C-alpha cells in the first residue's frame, strides 16, 4: 500500500493554506494511499500546528527540535530521511522552502523528483502521470514518474482544491528519530522587505491599472480590490509617468516583465508596449469603457464597464465570499 507524506509548511503556529490542498492532491495521486502529515519545528508553535492538522489528516507526525525552529532545507532533510520510510511518496509545496528542501531530499531518499505539479492523472503500474507547465506557462507537459522506489513531489500552491476539515487524527511525536541535525548552513535572520517595495514579478495575481483610473486618489480603489484578491497592484506606463505609482509597479517593455496566473487589466487599453511585459499566458480579465480597446483582443474575458464603478462592486463581492 502506497504511503504518502505531506510536508506541511507553517508560520507563527498556523499551517499554510496548502495543507488543505494536499489531501485532494494525494487522492488524485492514488485514492488508495494512506496520507500522513509531517510537520517540523520547535515548541508551542509546532504543537499548535500539529494539533490543528488533526482535523485534516488521519495521522500527523511532528518532529520537534530546536535546530528545526526555522525551516532549513539541510536540517529538515536529515530529519525526514531519518523519520520517513525509504519508499514513501513525499508531497511538499512548490514554494521557496520546497524548492530548497526537495531536490536534495529526493537524492537522500534515492527516489524520483517531480517539481511544480499542477495535476495528477493516475498511476499505471509504477508510473505516475503528472501535469506540469513549462516555458513560462506557455505550454503544459505530461511527465511520468517511476514511483516504485518512492518519490518527492512538489505541488503548485492553489492547483488542487482545498478540502473541508473532517478528520479526527492523532499526533505522533517522532522527534526522537530525527537523529543528528548539525548542519553546515546556519540561519541568521529575516530581512523584511521595505514597505512599498512590492515585487510585481513574483505575484500570481495582478490588478493592473491604466489611464482609466483617471486620478491618483482612485489608485486606492484598485488597492482595495487587490487586497481582497490577495493580489498586488501593477500599472501601465502613464501611471508611473504621472508618479501615481512607483516605477517598480510598471508592466511593459519599458517596465517589468510579469508572469502572473491572472492579470486583471483595469482601464488599460492594451498597447503593444504594455502587453509585451505580460508573459506566461496568464488568464487576462479586461475591464474598459471603450469596447474597441485592443486589450479585448488579447484578454480571455472582457467587460465593457467603467472601472471606477466596477472595481468597488467587485471588491464588495469578493470580500463577501
Amino acid at each position, binding site marked *: 500500500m502506497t504511503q504518502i507524506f505531506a510536508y506541511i509548511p507553517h508560520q507563527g503556529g498556523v499551517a499554510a493554506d496548502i495543507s488543505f490542498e494536499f489531501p485532494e492532491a494525494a487522492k488524485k495521486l492514488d485514492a488508495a494511499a494512506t496520507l500522513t502529515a509531517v510537520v517540523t519545528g520547535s515548541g508551542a508553535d509546532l504543537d499548535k500546528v500539529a494539533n490543528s492538522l488533526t482535523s485534516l489528516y488521519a495521522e500527523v507526525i511532528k518532529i520537534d527540535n530546536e535546530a528545526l525552529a526555522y525551516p532549513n532545507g539541510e536540517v529538515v532533510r536529515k530529519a525526514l530521511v531519518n523519520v520517513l520510510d525509504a519508499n514513501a511518496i513525499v508531497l511538499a509545496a512548490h514554494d521557496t522552502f520546497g524548492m530548497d528542501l526537495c531536490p536534495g531530499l529526493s537524492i537522500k531518499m534515492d527516489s524520483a523528483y517531480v517539481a511544480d505539479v499542477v495535476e495528477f492523472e493516475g498511476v499505471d503500474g509504477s508510473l505516475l502521470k503528472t501535469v506540469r507547465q513549462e516555458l513560462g506557462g506557455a505550454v503544459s507537459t505530461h511527465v511520468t514518474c517511476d514511483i516504485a522506489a518512492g518519490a518527492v513531489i512538489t505541488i503548485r500552491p492553489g492547483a488542487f482544491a482545498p478540502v473541508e476539515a473532517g478528520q479526527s487524527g492523532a499526533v505522533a511525536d517522532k522527534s526522537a528519530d530525527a537523529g543528528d541535525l548539525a548542519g553546515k548552513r546556519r540561519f541568521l535572520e529575516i530581512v523584511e522587505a521595505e514597505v512599498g517595495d512590492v515585487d510585481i514579478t513574483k505575484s500570481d495575481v495582478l490588478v493592473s491599472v491604466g489611464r482609466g483610473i483617471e486620478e491618483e486618489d482612485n489608485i486606492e480603489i484598485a488597492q482595495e480590490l487587490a487586497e481582497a484578491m490577495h493580489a498586488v497592484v501593477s500599472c501601465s506606463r*502613464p501611471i508611473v*509617468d504621472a508618479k501615481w505609482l512607483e516605477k517598480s509597479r510598471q508592466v511593459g*517593455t*519599458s517596465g517589468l516583465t510579469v508572469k502572473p496566473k491572472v492579470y486583471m487589466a483595469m482601464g488599460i487599453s492594451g498597447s*503593444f508596449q504594455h502587453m*509585451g511585459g505580460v508573459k506566461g499566458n496568464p488568464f487576462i480579465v479586461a475591464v474598459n469603457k471603450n469596447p474597441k480597446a*485592443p486589450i479585448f483582443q488579447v484578454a480571455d474575458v472582457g467587460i465593457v464597464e467603467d472601472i471606477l464603478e466596477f472595481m468597488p462592486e467587485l471588491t464588495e463581492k469578493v470580500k463577501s465570499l
Partner: protein
Amino acid sequence: MSSLIGPASFKIFGFFPAAVLSVLIPVVGVGLFAYIMARRLAPLVRAAPDNRLNRIPERIKNLLVLWLAQYRQPRYRTAGILHIVIFAGFLVLSIRSTSLVLVGVSDGFVLPGFDGVIGHIYNFFKDYAATAVFVACVVAAVRRGIIKPKRYSVPVQYGKDHTAEAVFVLGIICTLMISESLFEASNAAFEMAQTGHSEFLAPLSLGWIFRGMLMDLSQSTLQGLHITMFFVHDLTFFFFLCFLPMGKHFHVITSFFNVFFMRVDKGNIKPVQYGVTDEELDELESFGVKKLEDFTWKHMLDFYSCADCGRCSDQCPANAAGRPLSPRFITIKARDLMFDNYPMSGDIYKSKMLVEDIYTEDEIWSCTTCGACEQECPLGIEYIDKMVDLRRGMVDEGMVPQSLQKPLKALEKRGNPYGTMEKKRADWAKDKEFAAECAVKDLGNGDTADTLFFVDSITSFDDNIQEIARRTSKILTKAGVDFGILGKAEKDSGNEVVRFGEEMLYQDLKSHNTEEIMASGVKSIVTADPHAYNALKNDYTGLPPVRHISEVIAEKIRSGALMLKPALHPEKVYVYHDPCYLGRHNDVYEDPREALDAIDGLTRVELEKSRDRSFCCGGGGLMLFFEPEEEIRMGVLRVNMAAEAGANVIVTACPFCLVNIQDAIKVAGQEGKIEALDLTELIEEHLA
C-alpha cells in the same frame, strides 16, 4: 616738436630705453604662447585618427559662412549681435595690434601698404571698431554679470559658476580697447595743444572722446600716459594671447580650425575607427571611446573650442526634460579633464574610464541623437558621434542597461527589438479589409517590383502603427507606384542599433538587408519611417535611391498623380511636427508641409520650434525601451508647445513621433483636445 616721444625712443627714468621692454615683452609672450600651445597639442597627438582633409571646397564654404559671416550667431539675437561686433572688431583690430607691437621698436611704424589712403581709411574703421568692441564688451559684461541669462548658469552638479572668467575676459578686451585708444588720444591731445590740429580721429570714437578729455593735461602727464598705455596694451595683448588657451576663450584661436574641420555630412555616424574597414573591425582590440585618448583629435579640438555659450543645452530636449544630460557639460567636463591630465608642466596623468570618471552611464544613454545641439553650435562642435563612440565603449565593456539588453538580444535573434517571430513581419498586410482593397507584393517570395517599401520594425509589429504601413501602401497604389515589401526577409534597419553603440549587430543587420534589397532587384526604395530612411540613405552604402513617403506624396501631388479632397475637418487647426531624422538629419522640411497645404481648406499653423529647431518627441527605435530619469517627458513638452500654438491636430511623419506624441497627449491631459496623426493617415483619408 609736435609729437610725444614714441615708445621706441623713450627712455624710462631718463636712461633706460623702453625699446628693450618692447622687444622683451613680445619675445617672452610669443615664446610662452608657443610653449602653451605645444602642451595643448599634446593630447591631440595621442588621439585617435580622424579624416578631415576631404571635401575642401565645402570646408572653405563652412569657413566663409559659419566662421567669417558668423551665420549661426543671430539665432540668439542679442548675444549673436554682440558676438558679431566683437568678432568683426577683432578681425579689424588684429592689424592695428600687430603694428602697435612693432611701434615699440620703431616709432610711427605702419604696416606696408598702410601709409597712404588705405591707412587713413583703415584707421577710421579701426577707431570705430575699437569703440564698438568696447561698447559690446560692456553690454556683454552687464548681461553676464547682472542680467545673467539662464542659459549661462551652471547647474550645481556641473561645478562652479563660469561668470567670473567671462567677465574677466571682457575686462581684458576693454583694457585693450581703452589702452589702445588712450595711447593714440594722448598723442593727439598733445598735437592739438601744440599745433591746433592732430591726426584724424573718427568722431565719437573712443580715441576722439579721450582726446577731448586729455586736452588740458600737461606735456609730461601726456607723455607718461602715452608710454604707460603703450605698455599696458603690449602686456595685456600678450597676456591675453597666453591666457586664451586656458579656458573658454581658446575658441578665439581654435574656431577657425574647428569650423574648417567640422562635419560636412549629415545623418551618418563616424566609423568605429577611421582607416579601419567594416571587414577589419574584428581585428580591433577595443571599440569606441573608453578613455580620453580614444577620442579623435577633432573631437578633442571640439572640447578646446567650446565657447560655453550654452546654446546646445538650451536646445537639447533631454536637458529640457530634466534628464541627466547637458551637451554643454559633455564638452566642458572633457575640456577640464584635458586641462587636468595634460598640465602646463610636469607629467601627463594616466586617464581613467570616462564613464565613471567624468560621465555617468545614464548621461550617455540619455541622448536621443536628435541633433538639435549640433545644428545650433556656432562653432561646429559635434555631439552625436561622440555619444555613439562613448556608447560603443560601454557596449564593449558590457555596460548596457537591462532595459536595452532585452531588445538588443531580440534584434540579434529575431531581427526586431520586440522578439516577435520573423514570419509575422508582414502580418499587417493580411488584415482582411485591407487585403481585399490593396494587395502588397512580397519580394521575399519571388515577386518583383520597381520600388521597395521598407517597412521597418515598429511599423511591421506595433498594432497601432501598422496602420501607417497600410496607409502608405494605399497611397503608393493610388499614385501608381509598382512596389513590394521584403516581408520576413526584412530586418530592422538598425538606425538606433548603430547609434546605441552596438556596431557589430548593426553590421549584421546592414549586410543582411543590403543583400536582400540588392537581390530583390528594385530600382528605388521608399519608407514611411524616417529612422529607416536615414539608415538606408546615410549609413548603408550602395543601395538604390531612398525616399521618404512624404517626398513621394509631394512629388505625386505636383505631378497630378495624387488628387486630394478638400479638408474633411476645416474647423480643425493642424500643425506639422518635424521628425528629427526627416528634418534636421535629412533636410526634408518642405515636402510634408506642401502635402498638408495641398489639402484645400486645411488650416495649418507653425510651431515656434520647427524645421531645424524642431523639438524631439522623445526618441525612436531603442530609445522607446530606455527609461531615463527625467522630470517630464519630451513628448509632453512638445504637446504643450502645440497647444500654445493653438493646434488641435499634430501631424507628423514618423511612427516613433506618433507613438510618443500619442502617449504624451494622454499624459499631458490633452486627450480629446489634441490628437496626433501620421501624414500618411491624413493624406490617405483625403485621397480623391
